[in-house]
């Protein structure tokens, strides 16, 4: 089953089980790739390097990543220092102009990018870790363990987590990017857990898992050495989507003014722009870059994901 990129990535697990290609039973049927399509690595690479979407997505993400690293070096201005002209449009000196208070928008932007990547990496990573662990255990063990974990998953899935985050953040007196990422990560895993659970569930029924068990391998080895590698592509795509999701959630939090109390972020930039009437004043250089940065990164990830999806799910690919 494909991971659709619809936000908030609707748990593919929901119809995943029904939609999984059944292993071919008739001798004449092509021996389908089954659950997580396992194709020779060379073939995956072949398609990946010829897929415009993957190349484009990777290029965009890479561009912003490099910019976030190189930017602060090129322009070492303190992003929160009020030492430029006030409300100046982009110029040779201030590439992205300045804010009403004389802050350098470009410096804010590149530093904000850093925070964005950090939140995505940490938040998405944590969510992936939790989601994958819960998905594996629930899917592999089944029974009561599964009932219990699925219940927790469903509860967290239904609760509008952003509202929870808002309340939590409001009560936190000091907030850092890492703490924010942790909270985002801890609340955005459920759909991933569900999706991975159903994948694990169908892989568990495959005979090579029985064979590994009959070789006397301990359970954790069966999960991590036999099942997980088969879901490599799936796990990677899950991480990409969680990364994008974490970036968007963090931006939303920042925008309400509940972002990190220290430093700068893209969401905070938009918050400030709206708060100090950049819209009415026509200071487009203040609010265009941060939103564009987020949209470009997340959009590029989604586009990349579609490309990957079609490579791993030949059904989606047109011949």
């Amino acid at each position, binding site marked *: 089953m494909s991971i659709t990129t619809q936000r908030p990535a609707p748990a593919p697990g929901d119809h995943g089980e029904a939609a999984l290609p059944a*292993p071919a*039973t008739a*001798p004449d049927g092509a*021996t389908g*790739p*089954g659950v997580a399509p*396992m194709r*020779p690595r060379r073939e995956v690479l072949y398609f990946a390097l010829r897929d415009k979407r993957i190349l484009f997505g990777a290029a965009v993400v890479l561009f912003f990543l490099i910019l976030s690293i190189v930017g602060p070096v090129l322009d070492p201005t303190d992003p929160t220092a009020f030492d430029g002209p006030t409300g100046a449009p982009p110029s040779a000196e201030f590439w992205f102009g300045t804010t009403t208070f004389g802050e350098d928008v470009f410096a804010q932007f590149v530093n904000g990018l850093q925070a964005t990547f950090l939140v995505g990496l940490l938040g998405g990573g944590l969510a992936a870790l939790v989601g994958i662990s819960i998905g594996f255990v629930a899917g592999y063990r089944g029974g009561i363990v599964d*009932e219990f974990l699925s219940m927790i998953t469903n509860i967290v899935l239904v609760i509008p987590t952003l509202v929870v985050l808002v309340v939590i953040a409001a009560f936190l007196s000091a907030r850092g990017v890492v703490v924010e990422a942790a909270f985002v990560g801890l609340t955005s895993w459920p759909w991933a857990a569900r999706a991975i659970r159903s994948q694990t569930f169908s892989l568990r029924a*495959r*005979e*090579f898992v*029985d*064979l*590994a*068990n*009959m*070789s*006397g*391998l301990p359970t954790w080895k069966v999960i991590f050495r*036999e099942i997980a*590698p*088969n879901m*490599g592509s799936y796990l990677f795509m899950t991480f990409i989507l969680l990364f994008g999701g974490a970036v968007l959630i963090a931006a939303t939090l920042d925008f309400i003014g509940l972002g990190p109390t220290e430093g700068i972020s893209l969401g905070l930039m938009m918050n400030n722009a709206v708060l100090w009437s950049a819209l009415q004043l026509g200071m487009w250089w203040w609010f265009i870059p941060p939103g564009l940065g987020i949209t470009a990164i997340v959009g590029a990830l989604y586009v990349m994901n579609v490309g990957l999806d079609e490579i791993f799910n030949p059904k989606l690919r047109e011949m």
Partner: protein
Amino acid sequence: MLTLDHVSKIYKVGTFGGTDLAAVKDVSFSVDAGQVVSLIGESGSGKTTIGRMILRLTQATRGTITFDGQDVAKLPRRGYYRLVQGVFQDPFSSYNPIFKADHVFGMIRSVYFRGMPNAEWDARVEAALEAVGLDPDQVLHKYPHQLSGGQLQRLLIARALLLDIRMLVADEIISMLDASTRIDVLNLLGDLKARGLGILFITHDLSLGYYSSQRTLILLRGQIVEMGATEKVYGNPTHPYTKMLIASVPLLHKKWRQVEQELETTAAPAADACTYHALQPELRGDGASAPARPALVEVEEDHFVGCIRPYVKGAC
């Protein structure tokens, strides 16, 4: 050697596991060394569940399975798998597609032969491959998709042989293979039997069971309805279900109609008399006293049959 004693498997299904579904009901039989026992049933008969219970891939709900008199569930896992192994229906799904095919050997080595020197291990692998008629150069270091179904199934049997097993559960191991190669894998079971192994051959194909086994069990909805020496079960099928199965097998040289006619004339006793209840007169009469799950009775030496109408209450 391996004995199942009143083994049942009940699955919990439905919301909160509210409904019981009996996949295997009160099954008892044994497999001895140097014997091929075929377990024949259609889909949903519970034949695969029995195999999985023996292989400890699922637990019996009731009853015990013993190996050399010891309760299988209590034996250490590794020790048990050294003696008892299985091969399954789908050769392609039996291999982890991201690894090379000999990964199945590697797993065995990592658990059982950790300290063995390379040369000794290679010799062992070679011996096992030779026993299944495979050329090491053709099958080692290849990915599963580069090998044929027949080669893959033989590799799995070779994998089991690495362990000095005494018992093999072969679950539909040739049903997905091509006609031109399946017989060779089937013959392999005969060779293993000659080496003294006990083999449980699970299949839905009566002709395969007839070809390779000494004893036959007919399974219907989780229950054994007829069992005994293969030539007796096939030569004198008594339970109507067995007869129906035999009459349904497509044969090359005989049309279905012919087989039907033969069965009606030669099969004894007449289909309208229930052998089971004829031998247990005290149970005859109203439906209430007819046991829900009649035990098997011996109709001739080494040939047992259950009630011929186990599902029609009070029919006898």
